[in-house]
């Protein structure tokens, strides 16, 4: 802790740390100082000069007004923010800033919430002394998310510094000089970064505004509701800005331990999906001829109850999206188990469930999110972290900037914005490289892990990585993380066992990157085949998400998911659903695959339309209220389940509020201590220790052919984000394609831009080839969850590739991804 000193601002005595800037002390004390370029999360530029104040140190006044953002405090310093000299300097700066500003507030989207407008109300003059021509700056196209109006720019360079320091991609810059200076990319290129939307908030004027929101509302027409982001496991805190019954835009809500002051573009722009015309707005029943008939809720719920009551409980498979709320997950498993059923799961993109018995009950991050940036060495196994968890990637980047060593073990090299060691191996072979790290740490084990370790030969990269982990482990600042690509791996259980061995041998902590907003919550709620509420282990586990498909059931409930895009093996899922007697779809969206699969469709409320709770990666319970009414006749999911429970005459379904459901589960969790309610409120904390031995005898046989890597691109992960048009037009929204390492491609006689037929068993389609040396040799990256991927098989598994004719490619694309 820096030395504490005391200074005086406007006659008020303030405590400050030596070296702090005047503006930081004033902000803490609530003393307003106008500013444009200063931002507490960015480096100091001191180029707007708006924060000029009068100061004296050691009894001697500074000869000129000083910028409060760039003047460190000293003992006994006296600062005047409102003296005649200070105000005169601030007014002067304001006049200069307004010389070239167009003052087009009536047609500017920022009008009414503009820092320049606010400050000019205080410091500007009514009449300008400037009669010359104002400068005009040509706009650049920064892509589908950010609208530009660069004539309004006042050159604060916050966006430039955000790019360089936070995003880690220096794409924007200030080119030219004086009158000709402008902010832009110089070469026009769409800004492709998963956090790019934050420059909209940072821009103090209307130069950078939100393109999807543009010209749709005025700030003073909006009301603001608090919300929690429904995509990744960070659970970013949001403000939903609402007009009437519509979410008009989303802004971040500061919460330092969770999302600091940022949100990802996915959290910011996915609200567009709420007003998509693919919303399911009324209960529907499929007639015998395949057409749909609208029902009223009463009839629909009774029909659903009849289906559930009439089914053999063991024949009901309940597949639930991992971003369903805690209340929905809890009531769903209560309802199913009340009927005598056992098969419920939210771990939809996984194939290897052998570890369920030994896994920690609630696999979670293993440490508070904010502590990520204080790690000294981190090994991330199987995670495209920028795509999966943008803000956790940002925390790791901060750790790297603070000299941490971060390493990745993945089926393909990631595009990162910081130095990192990247090891790659195709799916099924990641365990071999991880075993080499374990060997370098002299870990030993029995069974499959043991045989892999004793056969491993650590190369230099693995040895160095092991040393880093051990050194960090001794400081208590080492971490091993397992992500979504590991979770989808055919040998996930072995990967987990090895990760535990590595973490134990190096003295590091082990953490999981939960896939979705409520993956941790689903485990706590007991929406898993092997867990009851409170994450209590069950003696007789039901079928997991994949087994429900490979051992087809007679009745399915699909909750908040699209079977062709959200399940591990869409083709087998389609077959299983087609063979079922009854499929009930509860969804906020009406997608072709749901229509094909379901017999009854119940419209449930989407994100922002329902109250609920998400438990994020660090185990933080974040409860939120519905901010807008659900679309059409849709109803909040927990209410649908409550009424179903009542119709089915199950005990204890007479909840009067969602909060009551939440409290019931929280009490259960406190009792079992299984998951630990309210981790961050000083309650119990789950640990990530294994409950048992994984007991694997043999590693899976090495794949003899190509292995598909079906990663989930950032804007493909759930129904809401897939329905958000602006995000789908960004460069990060990947189309279906085959990405191959140049050597792999050469072996197959394929070149960039060729057409290739990819086949998994009987299922095949034609896709374009992309040569990409980031992909591990022997792996074929064909993304999952993107349009057209539903015709394929397992997201991670063997795949056959053959050259195809370009005309087939055109035909496939015309048919929307269906094979010609």
């Amino acid at each position, binding site marked *: 802790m820096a030395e504490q000193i005391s200074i005086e601002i406007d006659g008020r005595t303030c405590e400050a740390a030596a070296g702090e800037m005047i503006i930081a002390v004033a902000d803490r004390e609530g003393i307003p100082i106008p500013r444009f370029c200063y931002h507490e999360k960015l480096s100091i530029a001191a180029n707007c000069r708006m924060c000029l104040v009068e100061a004296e140190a050691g009894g001697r006044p500074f000869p000129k007004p000083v910028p409060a953002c760039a003047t460190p405090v000293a003992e006994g310093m006296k600062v005047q923010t409102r003296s005649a000299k200070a105000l005169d300097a601030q007014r002067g700066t304001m006049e200069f800033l307004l010389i070239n500003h167009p003052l087009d507030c009536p047609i500017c989207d920022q009008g009414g919430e503009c820092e320049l407008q606010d400050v000019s109300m205080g410091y500007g003059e009514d009449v300008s002394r400037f009669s010359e021509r104002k400068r005009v700056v040509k706009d650049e196209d920064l892509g589908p998310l950010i609208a530009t109006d660069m004539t309004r720019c006042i050159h604060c360079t916050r966006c430039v510094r955000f790019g360089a320091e936070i995003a880690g991609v*220096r794409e924007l810059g*200030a*080119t030219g000089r004086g009158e000709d200076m402008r902010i832009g990319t110089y*070469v026009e290129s769409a800004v492709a970064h998963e956090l790019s939307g934050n420059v909209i908030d940072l821009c103090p004027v209307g130069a950078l505004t939100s393109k999807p929101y543009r010209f749709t509302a005025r700030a003073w027409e909006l009301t603001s509701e608090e919300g929690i982001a429904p995509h990744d496991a960070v659970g970013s805190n949001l403000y939903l800005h609402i007009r009437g019954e519509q979410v008009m835009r989303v802004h971040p809500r500061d919460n330092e331990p969770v999302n600091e002051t940022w949100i990802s573009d996915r959290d910011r722009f996915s609200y567009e999906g709420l007003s998509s015309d693919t919303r399911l707005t009324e209960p529907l029943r499929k007639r015998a001829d395949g057409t749909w008939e609208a029902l009223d809720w009463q009839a629909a719920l009774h029909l659903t109850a009849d289906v559930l009551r009439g089914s053999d409980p063991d024949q009901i498979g309940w597949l639930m999206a991992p971003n369903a709320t805690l209340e929905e997950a809890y009531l769903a498993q209560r309802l199913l188990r009340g009927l005598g059923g056992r098969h419920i799961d939210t771990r939809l993109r996984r194939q290897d469930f052998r570890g369920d018995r030994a896994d920690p009950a609630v696999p979670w991050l293993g440490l508070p999110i904010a502590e990520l940036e204080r790690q000294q060495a981190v090994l991330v196994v199987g995670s495209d972290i920028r795509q999966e968890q943008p803000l956790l990637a940002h925390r790791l980047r901060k750790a790297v900037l603070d000299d941490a060593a971060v390493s990745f073990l993945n089926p393909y090299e990631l595009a990162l914005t910081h130095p990192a060691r990247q090891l790659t191996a195709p799916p099924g072979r990641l365990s071999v490289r991880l075993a080499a790290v374990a060997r370098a740490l002299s870990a030993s084990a029995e069974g499959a892990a043991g045989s892999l370790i004793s056969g491993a030969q650590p190369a230099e990269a693995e040895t160095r990585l092991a040393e880093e982990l051990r050194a960090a482990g001794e400081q208590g600042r080492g971490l091993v993380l397992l992500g979504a690509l590991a979770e989808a791996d055919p040998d996930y259980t072995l990967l987990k066992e090895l990760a535990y061995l590595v973490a134990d041998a190096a003295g590091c902590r082990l953490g999981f990157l939960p896939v979705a907003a409520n993956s941790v919550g689903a485990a706590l709620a007991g929406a898993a085949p092997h867990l009851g509420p409170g994450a209590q282990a069950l003696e007789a586990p039901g079928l997991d998400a994949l087994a429900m498909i490979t051992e087809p059931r007679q009745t399915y409930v699909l909750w908040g998911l699209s079977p062709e895009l959200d399940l591990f093996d869409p083709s087998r899922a389609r077959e299983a659903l087609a063979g079922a007697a009854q499929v009930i779809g509860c969804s906020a969206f009406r997608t072709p695959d749901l229509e094909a699969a379901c017999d009854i469709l119940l419209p449930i409320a989407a994100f922002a339309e329902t109250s609920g709770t998400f438990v994020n990666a660090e185990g933080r319970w974040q409860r939120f209220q519905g901010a807008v009414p659900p679309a059409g006749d849709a109803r909040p999911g927990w209410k649908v389940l409550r009424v179903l429970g009542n119709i089915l005459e199950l005990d204890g379904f007479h909840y009067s509020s969602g909060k009551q459901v939440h409290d019931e589960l929280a009490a259960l969790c406190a009792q079992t201590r299984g998951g630990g309610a309210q981790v961050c409120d000083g309650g119990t904390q789950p640990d990530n220790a294994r409950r048992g031995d994984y007991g694997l005898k043999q590693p899976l046989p090495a794949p003899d052919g190509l292995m598909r890597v079906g990663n989930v691109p950032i804007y493909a992960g759930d129904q809401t984000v897939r329905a958000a048009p602006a995000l789908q037009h960004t460069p990060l929204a990947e189309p279906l394609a085959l990405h191959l390492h140049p050597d792999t491609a050469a072996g197959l006689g394929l070149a960039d831009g060729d057409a290739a037929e990819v086949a998994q068993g009987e299922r095949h389609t034609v896709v374009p080839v992309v040569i990409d040396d980031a992909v591990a040799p022997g792996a074929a990256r064909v993304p999952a969850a993107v349009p057209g991927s539903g015709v394929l098989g397992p997201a991670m598994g063997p795949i056959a590739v053959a050259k195809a004719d370009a005309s087939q490619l055109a035909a496939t694309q015309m048919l929307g991804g269906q094979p010609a």
Partner: protein
Amino acid sequence: MSFRTAPLAVVHDVDKSTLLTPELRAEIDRHVGKYPPEWKQSAVMPALTLVQEHNGGWLTQDLMDQVAAYLDMPEVAVYEVATFYAMYDLEPVGRHKICVCNSISCMLGGAEALLEHVEARHGVAPGETSKDGKFTLKEFECLGACRHAPVVMVDQEYHECVTRDGIDKIISKLD
């Protein structure tokens, strides 16, 4: 947050030995050696100067990108420098550059009249190149020789207290 510390290097995915020419790389390395290793990008100005001379007096985007790659800098950071300083040209130039200082002393000393004279007599406005490709006329930021305003820099050579006749003579002597 503190003042900015050394910038994070952006390592480009290229083989540096394919960039520019071996002679240029050696020259740039000499300048890089003057700075601490983490401040390698401080050599960007001499590097751009060298590259510009080698390219007949102007910089292409490709050359700037190569400098960025060679010094582990983001491309836009090089564009910022190259667009800021008047001595870098981003479009083709004539065989010589005539730079007329436009800052306060020279302006008061008649620099504007010189520019008007060249435009009237030789048909070349500031920023333009003569039709025969002999010279490019540039309005330049302060040349730092205010005592003998107006000042004109022809390539690397300063001419002080320049009159209209004087600038005609200078132009006529150019090859």
